[in-house]
């Protein structure tokens, strides 16, 4: 047990993960805060919800990410009871759903950039999903959109890599009912990434 | 005290209150400074280590803590309240005096361009004229300035007027002053703005009312060619960085 004599009631690695997540909160606060501020400063740069961004596709992707959270927590519940098969099955499901999320995001980016919605100020000419001639929004829209969702996507991708690592460790019997710290911390990170997406989805796509 | 702090001569209406506040804070801090340092020196002498002596065993005194916390708090809150009032008098556009002259000062690397309203008394029209690195203003008249920048952040600094305000590209920042005597004074840039930041200086001439109207009339006659309208100039083009690389010795 990695826990000092005068402890907090939580083992080191889990406490460390929580402390790390606090700084992640501030990182995304910086990005989201910049977005809110720029949006108030330059309302013309932002199109109406659904005009440029593909909300139905992203809503589906949100659904996938929520599903991956429940599979992750199921994996944790399984190993808490020592259920190795369950752990492996749910971890595998989480990793695959995570990859689907990233895949859909890649498709989304590709389509959007073909429609002229890019982060580069000089090339920005988003005509929207209906494909009119008018340029919708302005370059700040592209810059903030790709920065926020891109950093979230990077977090998901890192999470997927860690999930595969956890999965293969689980296959080798690396966890047990007495030793599930790795799975628990994997879960904390994964749920945090999900939580950030919930906020981003609302702020970026719906408002 | 002015000698000690080397404050430049003050020639603006709000410079006086600023200087008195400077001196108020200076006196408070000098008293506190000497109090603390002398007490410190006395403690160092009085309680220096001597053989066979043991230090007083005490963990502190709550009453003392409360006294010095409260005393400091009262002092700084007092300073905060009076400085906030003076601050708003100088910087809050809602409290600006009715201007007798309105100008646009448009900064670029590395010059101060002052736009005068011209014959029609309106800024932003074709008959505006522009003076580069030289400003002339009438004495005893509130002058309202709108600060703009074409490229990077500059800071409009008039040491004798106790005036400083950044000029930020993409923003129109208001400022004002009222000169109390005629003469010629310095305009400087106080924000690092590139290679020739150190040479981004101009002069401001404060003229009597008659001199100023004469000067104004002469400028309007001499400069019919309108300068570029503020806000219409493109930003990125024609920046003098390459030229600036060869500096003067």
């Amino acid at each position: 047990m990695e826990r000092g004599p005068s402890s907090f009631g939580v083992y080191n690695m889990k406490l460390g993960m929580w402390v790390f997540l606090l700084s992640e909160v501030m990182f995304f606060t910086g990005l989201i805060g910049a977005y809110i501020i720029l949006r108030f400063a330059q309302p013309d740069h932002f199109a109406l919800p659904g005009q440029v961004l593909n909300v139905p596709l992203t809503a589906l992707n949100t659904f996938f990410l929520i599903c991956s959270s429940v599979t992750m927590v199921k994996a944790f519940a399984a190993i808490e009871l020592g259920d190795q098969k369950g752990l492996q099955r749910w971890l595998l499901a989480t990793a695959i759903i995570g990859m689907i999320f990233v895949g859909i995001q890649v498709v989304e980016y590709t389509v959007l950039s073909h429609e002229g919605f890019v982060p580069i100020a000089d090339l920005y000419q988003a005509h929207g999903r209906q494909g009119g001639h008018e340029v919708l929004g302005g370059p700040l829209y592209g810059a903030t959109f790709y920065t926020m969702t891109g950093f979230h996507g990077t977090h998901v991708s890192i999470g997927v890599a860690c999930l595969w690592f956890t999965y293969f460790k689980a296959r080798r019997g690396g966890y047990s009912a007495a030793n599930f710290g790795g799975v628990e911390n994997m879960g904390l990170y994964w749920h945090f990434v999900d939580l950030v997406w919930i906020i981003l989805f609302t702020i970026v796509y719906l408002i | 005290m002015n000698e000690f702090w080397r404050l430049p001569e003050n020639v603006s209406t709000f410079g006086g209150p600023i200087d008195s506040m400077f001196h108020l804070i200076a006196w408070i801090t000098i008293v506190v400074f000497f109090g603390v340092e002398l007490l410190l020196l006395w403690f160092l002498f009085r309680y220096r280590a001597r053989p066979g002596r043991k230090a007083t065993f005490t963990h502190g005194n709550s009453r003392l803590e409360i006294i010095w916390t409260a005393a400091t708090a009262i002092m700084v809150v007092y300073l905060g309240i009076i400085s906030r009032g003076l601050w708003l008098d100088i910087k809050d556009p809602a409290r600006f005096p009715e201007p007798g002259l309105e100008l646009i000062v448009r900064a670029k690397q590395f010059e101060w361009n002052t736009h005068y309203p011209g014959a029609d008394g309106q800024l932003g029209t074709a008959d505006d004229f522009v003076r580069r690195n030289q400003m002339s203003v009438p004495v005893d008249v509130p002058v309202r300035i709108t600060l703009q920048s074409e490229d990077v952040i500059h800071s409009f600094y008039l040491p004798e007027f106790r005036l400083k305000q950044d000029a930020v590209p993409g923003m129109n920042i208001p400022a004002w002053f009222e000169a109390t005597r005629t003469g010629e004074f310095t305009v400087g840039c106080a924000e690092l703005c590139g290679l020739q930041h150190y040479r981004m200086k101009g002069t401001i001439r404060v003229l009597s009312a008659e001199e100023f109207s004469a000067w104004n009339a002469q400028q309007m006659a001499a400069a019919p060619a309108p300068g570029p309208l503020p806000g219409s100039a493109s930003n990125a083009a024609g920046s003098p960085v390459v030229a600036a690389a060869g500096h003067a010795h």
Partner: protein
Amino acid sequence: MESQATNQAAGGSAAPHKSPPYMLIWLVLFVLTLAEVGVAFLSHIPKNILILILLALAVWKAALVAMYYMHLKFEPRKLWLLAISPLPLAVILVVIVLAEGW
């Protein structure tokens, strides 16, 4: 890391908890997401109120994930306090900069 979680470590709080209703939470999250999209595109609520409703729904969902999936509900109170500690700073940053008048 050689760190291992023992049952004792995981259950720092008083009693070992029953498995929380994970699937139920999932269902609620799903319904809330549908509700968000629905409210955003199908209703005729004024913009300002709509934004408040959408933000409230998002915070609700985020809270559910944090409380149940991240187990904050079952953790010692101290960890719970630790977890919410940066939120005031986040609010300060955004509110003060917005108060700038932008």
